């Protein structure tokens, strides 16, 4: 007699594992030498869902083995040791790899002469600095997937704001919006200044599942953002939205009410932060008292400045909603008072007035009895 119980190690099972159609091992080449504050790397380390160490240590089922090459988290001492995998990939000797770019891409073409805006290591032959643009030109065409981390890399962000001297732009402006990676993926944009930690790790994990052959490509919208993360507005997830609906607006930042009059752009910004919180559900923007300054948006920051003034259009829509909001607020106030009262059968007098019926049956004897009594 055989009893199928206990633990069987699948790897030892003769016909256990199915052949996989994806990669078993992948490199992540992360370059933060764009115009950036490195805040997206730091933000990524705040994610616990999943944590970067969970991915690197192989704790998330179904992912390929991941070799992470990120300057901040690298155990390498620096210099050539750190650059080795990047150099190998540029020569076509390291694949497959996912290229992550952090920071805006400066425009090299506006510089006369051989200057540069930002560099990453030196040219081994000449000793001259290698520009970020050189690396993108050499790595992007070989990358299995390209991910832009943060609003700088996706759409240009702060360093591309009016008056900037570097002609900065986002990665898709640089590579072209119809760019396709070796894995046939468009650039995967994860905007946010900085990225919301879990938004980024979740997207990266999806891309890795896709690399492993266990998931379809992540669904992206026309601005190449993950649809499930950026498909709704801040307002739609804001816990102050009911105040808006009731035309109840904060006049300064002391108020728990809707902040649209003091600079919140939530009604028109694609972002899930008030809903998701900043990390592990904690923090956020309008939900905790910060105006939404539109930091995930292609128009950030210029379209939203000056940040602390009411958004253009805010006046009109808040005027429109005022009569409706005022009526609704009053009616709700009345109902609210009603539901704040206790039902009158709760008392300590000698009669039971709660409607209790020990033999209640829809068609039973007690019902007939009651009907007779009427």
């Amino acid at each position, binding site marked *: 007699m055989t009893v199928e119980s206990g633990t069987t190690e699948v790897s030892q099972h003769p016909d256990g594992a199915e052949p996989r159609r994806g990669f078993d091992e992948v490199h992540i080449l992360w370059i933060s*030498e764009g115009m950036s504050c490195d805040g997206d790397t730091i933000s990524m380390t705040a994610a616990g869902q999943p944590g970067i160490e969970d991915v690197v240590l192989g704790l998330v089922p179904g992912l390929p083995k991941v070799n992470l090459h990120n*300057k901040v988290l690298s155990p390498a001492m620096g210099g050539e040791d750190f650059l080795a995998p990047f150099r190998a990939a540029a020569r076509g000797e390291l694949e497959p790899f996912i290229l992550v770019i952090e920071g805006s891409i400066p425009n090299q073409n506006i510089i006369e002469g051989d200057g540069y805006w930002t560099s*990453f290591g030196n040219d081994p032959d000449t*000793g001259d600095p290698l520009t970020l643009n050189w690396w993108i030109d050499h790595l992007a065409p070989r990358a299995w997937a390209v991910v832009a981390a943060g609003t700088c890399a996706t759409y240009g962000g702060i360093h591309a704001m009016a008056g900037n001297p570097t002609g900065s732009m986002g990665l898709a402006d640089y590579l072209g919006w119809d760019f396709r990676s070796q894995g046939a993926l468009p650039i995967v944009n994860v905007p946010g200044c900085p990225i919301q930690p879990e938004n980024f790790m979740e997207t990266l994990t999806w891309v890795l599942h896709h690399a492993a052959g266990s998931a379809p490509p992540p669904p992206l919208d026309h601005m190449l953002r993950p649809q499930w993360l950026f498909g709704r507005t801040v307002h739609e997830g804001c816990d102050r939205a009911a105040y808006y609906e009731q035309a109840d607006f904060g006049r300064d930042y002391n108020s728990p009410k809707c902040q649209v009059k003091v600079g919140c752009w939530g009604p028109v910004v694609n972002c899930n932060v008030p809903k998701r919180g*900043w990390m592990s559900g904690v923090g956020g923007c309008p939900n905790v*008292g910060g105006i939404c300054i539109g930091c995930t948006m292609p128009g950030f920051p210029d379209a939203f400045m000056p940040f602390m003034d009411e958004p253009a259009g805010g006046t009109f829509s808040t005027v429109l909603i005022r009569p409706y909001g005022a009526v609704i607020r009053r009616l709700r106030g009345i109902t609210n008072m009603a539901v704040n009262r206790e039902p009158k059968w709760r008392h300590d007098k000698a009669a039971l007035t709660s409607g209790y019926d020990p033999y209640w049956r829809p068609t039973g004897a007690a019902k007939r009895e009651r009907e007779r009594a009427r």
Partner: protein
Amino acid sequence: MTATEARAAERKPAQIVDMSWDPITRIVGNLGIYTKIDFANREVVECHSTSSLFRGYSVFMRGKDPRDAGFITSRICGICGDNHTTCSNYAQQMAYGVKPPMLADTIVNLGEAAEYIFDHTIFQDNLVFVDFCEAMVKSTNPSVLARAERTEARNGNIHGYRTVADIMRAFNPFEGEVYKEALKVSRVTREMFCLMEGRHVHPSTLYPGGVGTMPEPTTFTDYLSRLVHVLDFVKKAVAMNDDVFDFFYEALPGYEEVGRRRILLGCWGAFQNPDVCDYRYETMSEWGRAMYVSPGVVVDGKLVTNDLVDINLGIRVLLGSSYYDDWTNEEPFVTHDPLGNPVDMRHPWNQTTVPMPQKRDFDGNYSWVMSPRWYDRNSAEHLALDTGGGPLARLWSTALNGLVDTPYVKATGHSVQISLPKSEKLPEMTLEWKIPKWSNTIERDRARPYFVAYAAAMAFYFLERAMGFVRAGETKVFENYEVPDEAIGCGFHEAVRGVLSHHLVIKDKKIANYHPYPPTPWNGSPRDSYGTPGPYEDAVQGQPIFEENGPDDFKGVDIMRTVRSFDPCLPCGVHMYLGKGNTLTKLHSPTYGAAHA
């Protein structure tokens, strides 16, 4: 020249090798270190630090609404953006003449305390300590590791590791117990931060005039419960760090010379005292001294000043070896401060950033980082102050000042006593940080976990105050104001890695001039107009080499430990400009074994 006294020793004929590390890992931003090392005498004979990024904040801030300054300057740095926002708001509050409600100042203090705990933890345990971990020591000083295996950890009863090597193993990246625990703690402390300031890195609830944070009892309960749960880790970290650093002094006699500089420390003070601070320039000396981290300039162990007005007026921005054109022929923006003191043309209030891209030349100009210096009226020297990576200068200045006196932290004139309440596994503890003998690599690193304890202890104090306000019904957190047509302001704060100032000039309600001076220009500056090297350069130059590898498989761990001890963070250093250049002929670029690649 500043400098470390040359060590007298019998010298062998020099065997000099050029070595460079570019980019430096485990820091935020782009930094390259270029050295000449004498392998015969095992010391570094020359060091240049350079960086390679221009973004131009002081350029694109011009003409913007001044209220936007905090939101924009946050983006200077991806790890301490909130320190910038806070500092910008201090400067704006001075310019607008507004004093935020006391609860708002307290919420900012709570946010900043969480930031210090978070940032120092992730930096020390996940970035710096990789240089002291088992895998690294094995590949650079195998004999030291062997000794660590035999050395009992003195504070084992607190942290639970038997030998020093056990601690080093716990620091192995991604695999070691402490490395992983530190990542978790850095998340919990960031949650604490988010409770006060909305988001980390770039906060969402800080405004000039106060905060938008909803000050409910829950806000503070949520913070308190997290704080209590990280205390065990904080206490253990201090004990573990002490064990490892004391071991290094014992195992490698002479290690105190690594990264040693003349004591030239600057601290601009942190944690406003809301009872005293009104943000006015006229009263700045007074409220500066009331801060819960005392400002001060410490030279050769003596406190030269703790007066923020003196500190402000002494700041000079020298061009030296950086790629800029001078501005001293322009009209000054500010000729006198609000007290009537003359303001120098080289002061940030009067600076204009005029980038001049040029070829990198280590004998000429080689950096886009300018050289801020502090002019000491007594000695007529332009001092290349450093920040000791932040904590060293903060603790040193606070200790010497002897002004901080709270139930949790007390400055004694020669030490700082830090009391932490009972936690899950460990009893109540009073830690004492005593002024060390040297300003060197190990003491910069050692000060860091002590400052984590300091910030945690102060957080308890701020929590008590915040709850006091809330329970008394004083829940206002924002004060309104008008932006004036013309005004000036300055803010002084401590970014995690050291001194931070923002200087602002408003004309026609717009920003006419804005110059942030974060710690990295102070620490990472190149040689100035007087030929004085910047602190990284000065600390590395002349330092002995203890690594056992020869030139062929040299990793440079002693040099990297020194550079990282300053907590280098380049995005703030290079908010100005970086241009073209090339490397010196390079014989060898060191690498670290592939075991952890």
